[in-house]
């Protein structure tokens, strides 16, 4: 008897239920929230702006999905497969679509909105993702690497650049000015957003990483098969069922 056969019908149903909740409700909600928050900007005047992702952000998102796939962090079979019901496949398709949108908006939020800085950030992301594909990390290492990538870019944009271009100045700006003595910003332009934009960006990135961690793993891809085996077995032995489940 394989370990899969030892799962009781109650446990099997519970597993299937939790997988369905995660796949159909939690993951799309997380990624759609990221897609919403990633484009959020608040101008210094308090006006809200929702920025659509640039074409480069879409390309980077596609590349990120490729990296997730190569590392095993994203298992397409666990989301869409011929053996799954059409409803389950639709849920899986929505997870993939929302993951793509969320990825694009995460790059949107950590990249400066225009100018040379945007170009430099985009090249930096492109090379890092390319390098990650070449390195073929496993899921754990990739998630760690993405945490460093997104965290570093967030710090650079919202803390360092935000402080350097803050018209009112502050301690961070003074410290950075001292550290970068002799270096001028020249013609580099950057529009400092209201502080609330940084907070929204921080939680957006955090939610995205949580979403990536919650993506169904390779082992989960075979879970429905195990569950159906367990259910088939219990159908042949109804007396073994808990009275509540009968």
């Amino acid at each position, binding site marked *: 008897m394989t370990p899969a056969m030892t799962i009781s019908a109650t446990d099997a*149903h519970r597993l299937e239920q939790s997988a369905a909740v995660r*796949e159909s409700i939690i993951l799309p*909600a997380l990624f759609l929230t990221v897609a919403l928050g990633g484009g959020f900007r608040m101008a210094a005047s308090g*006006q809200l702006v*929702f920025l659509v992702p640039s074409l480069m952000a879409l390309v980077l998102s596609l590349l990120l999905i490729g990296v997730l796939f190569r590392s095993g962090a994203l298992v397409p079979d666990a989301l869409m497969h011929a053996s799954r019901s059409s409803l389950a496949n639709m*849920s899986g398709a929505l997870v993939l679509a929302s993951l793509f949108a969320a990825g694009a908006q995460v790059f949107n939020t950590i990249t400066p909105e225009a100018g040379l800085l945007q170009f430099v950030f985009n090249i930096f992301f492109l090379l890092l993702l390319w390098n990650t594909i070449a390195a073929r990390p496993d899921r754990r290492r990739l998630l760690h690497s993405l945490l460093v990538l997104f965290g570093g870019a967030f710090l650079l944009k919202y803390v360092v650049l935000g402080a350097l271009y803050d018209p009112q100045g502050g301690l961070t700006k003074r410290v950075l000015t001292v550290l970068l003595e002799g270096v001028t910003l020249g013609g580099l332009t950057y529009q400092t957003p209201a502080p609330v934009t940084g907070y929204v960006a921080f939680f957006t990135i955090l939610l995205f990483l949580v979403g990536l961690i919650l993506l169904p793993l390779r082992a989960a891809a075979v879970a429905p098969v195990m569950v159906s085996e367990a259910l088939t077995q219990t159908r042949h032995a109804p007396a073994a069922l808990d009275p509540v489940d009968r």
Partner: protein
Amino acid sequence: MTTAAGIRLPVTAIRAIGLVLTLVYAGVVVWMYAKQPKTIAEVTGGLTATVALYHIDQASFDQGLTFFHKDQFAEARTALERADPAKQHGVTQFYIAYSYVRQGWGRVYSDDALYKQARAALERAVAVSPDGKVLVNNDPSLTLKTSDELKAEIDRGLTREAADFNPLRVFDKRP
């Protein structure tokens, strides 16, 4: 099928509920990016208007009309904007546009800056009206009863033409 832990839903029902919730939420996200609300009031007002639950503050609207009829246009706009913070009520936006037109209208020339603000308000009024036009029949003080007439007046005011130099223009009636 229930347990001590609570109600146990079939997996298909969970997936169906999730699908509906996801599509609704995705609709909200797309709406935010398409409509670009500029304030939280516009976000909440726009979303409630989408499901036909948006209401203006009637007291402020009435107060705005009172100011409007007394030719106190700046005061009228303040009250009307308070009545419709989400800019989702066509008639209120129509009155805001009208107040700019009346304030900017002159016998010799019209104030372009005010007329441009009138145009922006009228565009909002038309955009949020279900049939793409605004009709105000219950106010005898208005010369221009529809958004189409008001738009034509604004366009005339913003266009430089030979008729602008006609001295008989001083006898024109205020819209």
